[in-house]
């Protein structure tokens, strides 16, 4: 059974149908790229899966749970974490704290435990710290060491994106939704991140759905590519199939002019 199964999903914004009866699934351990021209509904799809928007129709089944109607934090606790297209870190918190927030849903300590400094609470704090550092260590030395206690706004653009992924990893999710993880990166950083997305699956066992515009990244990591246009799925398959699909080319480049005569 698929880890994520989207059936007949629709979402209207006023008169605009952003997602139109979309069916879509992700198997466990798969890396699926969602591509499509601007305004195709890719980010809206992510927002619907993570509960930021409520769908008008359809259902989203993740790991046996229907996500429709759940709050974003409940969905995250079930195991879906995401990054944002426009990097949205907690910029005035330290790098370590950013990732520690990701562990909120996995821990329990309340106000009284904290004030009384119960052993359980102290152990949990230590656990949070350990896990956060572990998530950050996935990116080599970039985000650890003296960086841990610096506010997130000092980071370079690429590091911000990395930190966002680390924060999503810390939630203990099974499924990572990465929204344009390489946007704004230089070619070398892009290459490195492509490799890293592969490692996220191979070493850490995440299932990954990513929205991506850079076709080299899509080609490099995807097991399967889903193409959206006007909220509908217009093609699906491995990269080569999709790349030569007439409808996909049309969506990106426009229709060939038909001679009337």
């Amino acid at each position, binding site marked *: 059974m698929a880890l994520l199964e989207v059936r007949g999903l629709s979402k209207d914004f006023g008169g605009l149908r952003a997602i139109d009866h979309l069916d879509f699934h992700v198997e466990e351990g798969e890396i699926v790229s969602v591509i499509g021209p601007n305004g195709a509904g890719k980010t809206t799809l992510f927002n619907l899966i993570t509960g930021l928007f409520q769908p008008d129709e359809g259902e989203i089944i993740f790991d046996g749970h229907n996500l429709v109607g759940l709050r974003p934090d409940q969905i995250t606790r079930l195991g879906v974490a995401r990054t944002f297209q426009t990097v949205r870190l907690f910029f005035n918190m330290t790098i370590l704290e950013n990732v520690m927030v990701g562990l909120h849903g996995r821990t329990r300590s*309340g106000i009284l435990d904290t004030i009384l400094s119960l052993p359980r609470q102290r152990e*949990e704090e230590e656990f949070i710290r350990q896990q956060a550092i572990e998530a950050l260590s996935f990116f080599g030395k970039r985000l650890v060491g003296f960086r841990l206690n610096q506010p997130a706004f000092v980071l370079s653009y690429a590091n911000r994106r990395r930190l966002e992924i680390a924060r999503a990893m810390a939630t203990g999710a099974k499924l990572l939704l990465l929204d344009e993880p390489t946007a704004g990166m230089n070619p070398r950083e892009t290459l490195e991140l492509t490799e890293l997305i592969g490692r996220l699956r191979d070493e850490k066992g995440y299932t990954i759905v990513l929205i991506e515009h850079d076709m080299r990244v899509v080609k490099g990591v995807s097991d399967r590519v889903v193409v959206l246009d006007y909220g509908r799925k217009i093609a699906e398959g491995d990269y080569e199939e999709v790349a030569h699909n007439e409808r996909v080319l049309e969506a990106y480049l426009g229709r060939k002019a038909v001679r009337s005569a």
Partner: protein
Amino acid sequence: MAEIAPVPEKAPVIEDVRLKAPEVSLERAAKLGGVAGIVAVFVSANGMVQAFAERDIISGVLSMGYTLLFLVPLIMAYLAAREPPVLEGFEAPEKGPRNVLAGLIVGALTGLIMAIFVLVASAVDMRRVFINISPQLLELLTFGQGMGGLVFLVGGCLLTGAVGGLMQLAEGRWRRALWGALAWTLLIGLLEVIVAQLFRGLGLGFLSPLFYAGTGGLTPLGTAVVFVLAFLYYWSVVPKVDMWQRRYAHMPAERQRSVRLSLTVAAVLLVAILPQVLGPFVSEVLDLVGIFLLMGLGLNIVVGFAGLLDLGYVAFFAVGAYTTAILTSPASPRWSPEMSFWAALPFVILAAALAGIIVGTPVLRMRGDYLAIVTLGFGEIARLLLLSDWLRPVFGGAQGILKIPTLSIGPIVFRTPVDMFYPIVGFCLVAAYISWKLKNSRIGRAWMAMREDEQVAEAMGVDIVEIKLKAFIVGAVIASFGGALFATKIGSVFPHSFSLLVSITVLVLIIVGGLGNIPGVVVGTLALVGLPELLREFQEYRLLAYGVLLILMMLYRPEGLLPSKQWVRELHEEELMQDAWLKMEEDRRRAQAQAAQGDLPARPEEA
């Protein structure tokens, strides 16, 4: 610990292209001079100068009124004479006569505007509208010399303007020491009550007549001593603090612990003897400061940590006070269980938590301005309910509840303000501990995350509803401690003690102190609650001062008086590091220096 790259002494310069940073702008000086003139007229016309003239800072030489008046050109001239910030890669202009000239312009314009004001005010009777422009004020402004006194007024403005400009020429350490000494001299001059009492309490009462003239204000000798001592303090002690901190950071953990322990013991001893030495009057003020501090710490959790702007915070203070009153007072109208303070405390906490939920629940989905308005309403509702005839049988209406017993632990009764100081400090410590503990915990991080970006916090698994309610509950409970102490200290509660003004004062003091920072709240409370209590002349202008202070803080120092030092440093370090060009230049310089010394290879770069 990351090594901090030394900042180059001068900005690097590309080859021969020397980019000069703009010099002090005389046009700006003229603008600031105009502003200074208007401010000086304003403080004269609203009566501050005259009201403050009755208190001397230096006996027979300088009154607080003149100080206020002349501080305006002094500070403005100082600001006008400051160079605009030097951008990276530009060469800072040499300091020189131009700085002083800018100061003089400010002084001259202030003097001119003041002179015009005096001339107009003496020709036209404006007292119908501006009741404070009295003949006495004009006499003050002309130094009792008739219109000839205007020379002194303008001369004084020119002189202070020039001094302000000259201050800019002084090298950093001198400048800081001079300003520090000036500020302390003014403060010690004003706070005769405290200092004289301090001498008496320490058994040094014979010193008082040497310092204070007895008619208010310092003696010339006292002034000199205070000025020199403060100067020396800023000159030799303050620059070393940084070094001590660094030395402390390098100490082995065991030494660190012993240093910490001895500092704690010293602080505890100081707090223990403080009220004894300071006597009942100052202790009374300190008690009030403590109660406001308690509320400040509580509101800091709601506003500073969680970012929920609560303008009705006084409601929780009232809940604490009234719950205590009803449960402990024999005069409680409806029901008087006559519990002890400590037996009532758990119920106070419960009542406050409940109040937190009642206020919190309806505003869960609101943000920013909407939240502020709704909580403002709640604060007023609380006060009006206490005042209402409807609930008079329970809360006693406008008559309030009297005969609240004084606080006691076993045989120890906290009767006087001096006694009350200890439990208040105790509660403050508890509140500070709670704040600190929560800040560095899962819950504190969730609050901060919510403050930064509610939607993302939610997407990271933070239950916004739960965490918001928790912030309201903790804030409410801490405020209720303040209310409970207030009730038992005063011995009675009345609805009028819980006005909007209390909410605003608490909010202002945490903003001024530094949102989210616990020592900042302490400083803010001392400055905004303690000082006005000690300077009675000030009371009338309290709100004016709050307003001015808030505007200035928002414009020039939105992070508050005491932001976290570590952050500021890291911020600056990072600015430099991120400027790749400067970094390259710096690396080259370092490599050259090393090549010249012929030792160690360059340190490998941190990724």
